């Protein structure tokens, strides 16, 4: 059978699309470039919204991107079950698009932070985390200025109660995120957003001192192949 096709979206100002495509390829899938201005998902099996400063992060991170033509296609597709992973700016766009609840706000320390961060996998019941073990600690780079997850009390309670907190910062909360949240999922578990960068942790030579990011891609591939 033909390889799974994972779309990688480029908005103006997206930065990690090349890394995301590389990570998809290394996992054995086909990376399909998707352009923000096209009303076309090119029939992909899953979508990766990479990080960056789309539209310069002007106004609010992700605020302008979420209105792009591609997003008008992606939003209903995601609601209908298409697996979508958003990292960093991608996570911010997913929140702005209301595919995920809550919002990402300025880091508590008020600085952009780039560092290798320990993360605890809290849920393996999503399309993108099945290959991890519950409670597993992994190391991924974070690099953001606005990664402090906030949501109202009811939303937080629902996320916690329904097991939709997928990742939590371990060994110190870098940005003041509520409940140490690093990543969450929608109810169906097909849409996942997180601030850390799995695509920067897939090779020995470059990126973070771990290859823990590979688990995201093996998870989605197994899911697509078995589907």
């Amino acid at each position: 059978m033909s390889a799974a096709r994972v779309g990688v979206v480029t908005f103006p100002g997206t930065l990690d699309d090349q890394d995301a495509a590389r990570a998809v390829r290394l996992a054995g899938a086909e990376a399909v470039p998707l352009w923000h201005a096209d009303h076309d998902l090119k029939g992909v099996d899953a979508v990766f919204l990479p990080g960056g400063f789309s539209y310069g992060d002007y106004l609010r991170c992700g605020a302008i991107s979420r209105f792009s033509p591609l997003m008008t296609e992606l939003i209903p597709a995601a609601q209908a079950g298409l697996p979508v992973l958003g990292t960093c700016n991608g996570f911010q766009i997913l929140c702005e698009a209301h595919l995920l609840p809550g919002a990402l706000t300025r880091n508590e320390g008020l600085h952009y932070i780039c560092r290798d961060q320990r993360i605890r996998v809290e849920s393996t019941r999503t399309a993108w985390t099945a290959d991890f073990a519950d409670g597993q600690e992994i190391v991924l780079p974070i690099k953001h200025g606005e990664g402090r997850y906030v949501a109202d009390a009811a939303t937080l309670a629902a996320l916690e109660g329904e097991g939709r907190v997928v990742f939590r910062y371990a060994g110190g909360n870098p940005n003041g995120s509520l409940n140490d949240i690093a990543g969450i999922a929608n109810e169906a578990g097909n849409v996942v957003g997180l601030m850390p960068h799995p695509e920067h942790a897939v090779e020995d030579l470059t990126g973070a001192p771990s290859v823990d990011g590979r688990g995201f891609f093996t998870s989605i591939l197994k899911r697509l192949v078995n589907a």
Partner: protein
Amino acid sequence: MARVIVDVMLKPEILDPQGQAIARALPRLGFSGVSEVRQGKRFELELDGPADEAALSEVRKMAETLLANTVIEDFAIHVAE
């Protein structure tokens, strides 16, 4: 041609680290008497036409959909004199 202002502030229950940092810095700089600081955004929109009902209702829509993220922010609109 009119100018309309949209003020966007974080909802009161949302932590505002920028405002807090300023509040903490003030005493160090020798300023006293300020108990709290909140930092928000101010947008000045130049309209092509007058700031009539129709225009303001458009601005309201812009504020709701784009200028403010109503999950965490409140906004207020007023016409500049």
